[in-house]
């Protein structure tokens, strides 16, 4: 047998057993990324992520804009000790917040793509960002959540509902910057400042340098010494694959007026307009869901997941308190076991119903019932510890796998859908909403809980509901049915693959130290 055949044979026989904790981590993070495109790009699976972003016609301008915004407004946060240069640079951001408009012309040079140039406007007070290049234009108003994209090739203006929040310290700029240059490169920036004179004007020059191994990113920002406003910005950085270097250079001006609409950017007024804004009815439905979600501000939720034959595959215990949350996950595996577990769902459910408080007390204080992983969401970061032979701690952005009642009862549906009626909604007195490629059915008699969601392949049915002490409804038993279809879309089979049982208890006081990251770290010591 040849070596190649031996290798083939070994590959064919290779097998792995994957802990569902890994599935949970990957799927949840991927779904978060799917829900928030252009917002959580964390890694470079493409040969060159900067190229990927810049090559995309629609995102080209937006990417350039956020890079510049990030450099000006956010980057100082990554610096080390708050020295004088960092403090002075922070003041630059404050001055930009007070200008009526900022105008920036930008050229981008990337070895892998042809050079490009664009210009953009920023209106900090009204949170407007606009830009144009040869391929089109965009105009985003973050206050009324409208995004308009003009594509010159198609001669269309498309109006979208704006998903992103605009905030100086919010995630998009950080994520873009992080995606292009890598988080490590930006985590230890050094900032220096020196004075220069040009054409009789005194200038401050800020040099920001980030290094990771043999990779370097340099940012040079020139501001007026008197007004602190940026005059020019230069960026030079190797991408994460070290395959090429990206150069960006921009010049800033501060006019009194800017584009009040996309048509002020030179877009012809006779273009075809495609309106993708939500209907009023759909928006109302989404607002209702949002209000009911807010009723649950401080609570404990226990979710028991498993197959329909009553075998429990995972138990989640989450504390939610406003903007902070703590989540623990408990498992048992076929091949080995650790942590806390009831193998039989029926026994477990009875135990919970009988003594909810003692269950919580036990998992908090009894070492033999410790969870295998704990996440803590502090409103900004998720602190995640994993136990086991090689305990680990990670700090990440994003909620990750932390579950809340909203995800089960009032899913966050972007208000782009349309209200519809069908036989199922009529028979059950439900409100149907078609959005994001799925059909949602809301029950107005039970706090508008989404009792059914069908995306054509997976159906999520609320089979039972329960009420909290204060009378709020929540789904207490949910079935997931998988539909198998052939290539033409015809249904081949459907099968219930998972059953989730949910217990919710409203609480006003949480265990002391529950939301303290230091306590979380002690869990792996």
């Amino acid at each position: 047998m040849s070596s190649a055949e031996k290798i083939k044979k070994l590959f064919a026989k290779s097998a792995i057993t994957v802990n569902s904790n890994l599935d949970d981590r990957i799927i949840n993070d991927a779904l978060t990324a799917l829900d928030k495109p252009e917002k959580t790009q964390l890694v470079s699976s493409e040969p060159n992520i900067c190229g990927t972003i810049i090559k995309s016609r629609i995102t080209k301008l937006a990417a350039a804009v956020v890079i510049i915004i990030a450099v000006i407004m956010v980057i100082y946060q990554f610096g080390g000790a708050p020295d004088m240069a960092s403090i002075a640079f922070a003041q630059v951001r404050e001055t930009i917040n007070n200008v009526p408009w900022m105008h920036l012309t930008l050229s981008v040079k990337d070895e892998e793509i042809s050079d490009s140039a664009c210009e953009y406007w920023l209106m900090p007070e009204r949170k407007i960002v606009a830009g144009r290049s040869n391929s089109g234009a965009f105009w985003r108003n973050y206050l009324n959540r409208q995004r308009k994209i003009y594509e010159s090739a198609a001669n269309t203006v498309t109006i979208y509902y704006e998903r992103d929040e605009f905030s100086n310290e919010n995630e998009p700029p950080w994520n873009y910057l992080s995606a292009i240059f890598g988080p490590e490169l930006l985590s230890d920036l050094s900032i220096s400042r020196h004075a220069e004179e040009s054409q009789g004007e005194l200038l401050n020059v800020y040099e920001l340098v980030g290094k990771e191994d043999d990779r370097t990113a340099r940012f040079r920002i020139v501001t007026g010494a008197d007004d602190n406003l940026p005059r020019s910005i230069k960026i030079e950085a190797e991408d994460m694959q070290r395959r090429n270097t990206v150069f960006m250079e921009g010049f800033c001006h501060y006019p009194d007026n800017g584009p009040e609409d996309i048509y002020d950017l030179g877009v012809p007024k006779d273009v075809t307009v495609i309106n993708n804004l939500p209907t009023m009815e759909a928006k109302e439905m989404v607002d209702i869901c949002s209000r009911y979600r807010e009723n649950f501000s401080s609570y404990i939720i226990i979710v028991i997941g498993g197959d329909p034959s009553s075998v429990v595959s995972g138990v989640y215990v989450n504390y939610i308190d406003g903007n902070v949350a703590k989540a623990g996950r408990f498992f048992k595996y076929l091949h080995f076991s650790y942590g806390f577990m009831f193998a039989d769902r029926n026994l477990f459910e009875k135990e919970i119903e009988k003594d909810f408080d003692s269950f919580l007390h036990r998992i908090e204080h009894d070492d033999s019932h410790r969870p295998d992983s704990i996440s803590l969401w502090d409103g900004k970061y998720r602190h995640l510890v994993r136990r086991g032979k090689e305990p680990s701690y990670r700090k990440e952005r994003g909620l990750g796998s932390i579950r809340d009642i909203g995800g089960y009862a009032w899913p966050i549906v972007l208000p782009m859908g349309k209200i519809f009626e069908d036989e199922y909604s009529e028979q059950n007195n439900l409100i149907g909403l078609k959005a994001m490629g799925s059909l949602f059915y809301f029950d107005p008699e039970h706090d508008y809980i989404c009792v059914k969601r069908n995306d054509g392949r997976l159906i999520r049915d609320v089979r039972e509901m329960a009420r909290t002490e204060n009378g709020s409804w929540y789904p207490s038993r949910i079935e997931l049915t998988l539909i198998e279809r052939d290539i033409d879309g015809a249904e081949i089979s459907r099968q219930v693959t998972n059953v989730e049982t949910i217990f919710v208890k409203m609480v006003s006081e949480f265990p002391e130290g529950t939301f303290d990251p230091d306590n979380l770290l002690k869990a792996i010591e």
Partner: protein
Amino acid sequence: MTDRLSVMRCKQESRDSLHNIYEQYRDSLLILAIALSHDVNIAEDAVHDVFVAFAQNSENFKLTGSLKAYLATCVANRVRDLMRKKQSRTKAASLQQNCSKTLDLRDPGRLIVCNEELQLLSSALARLPYEQREVIVLHIHGQMRFRIIAKSLGISVNTVKGRYRYGIRKLRSILDSEI
């Protein structure tokens, strides 16, 4: 569901379609990443990162070939990047500590538990230079043609074939003593 349909559905923000893609390719990609890196932590992170990036780019993603090959290439790229970072970081660590550290891929405390065949395979491949390992794994496990590998790695077909040939030759002596 075919690759193209999966991607189309994923583009339409079909969460479960993404789930489907993940379930369909998870094991294959993890095995590929383990074979390349001989490190389950890197394998976990690489597959994680690739799926997050895939979901992120799904709106603009155009599938021109096999989805499996595309994902395999992404994982290989990511593994290379993570290994490079890890190597740089461990330079400062004790050399002795690094040399004496052996990976127990069967450790039940891990998120991924490998069978004996995969451990053997991974150990054997770990003795090859990464470039040769990459070509062998993508060709044999990823079922990618040399021409496709060359295109995705940005090198010539002859270079790919050379790496494959040298790699297989070295594996011969390793495997003859271990299989």
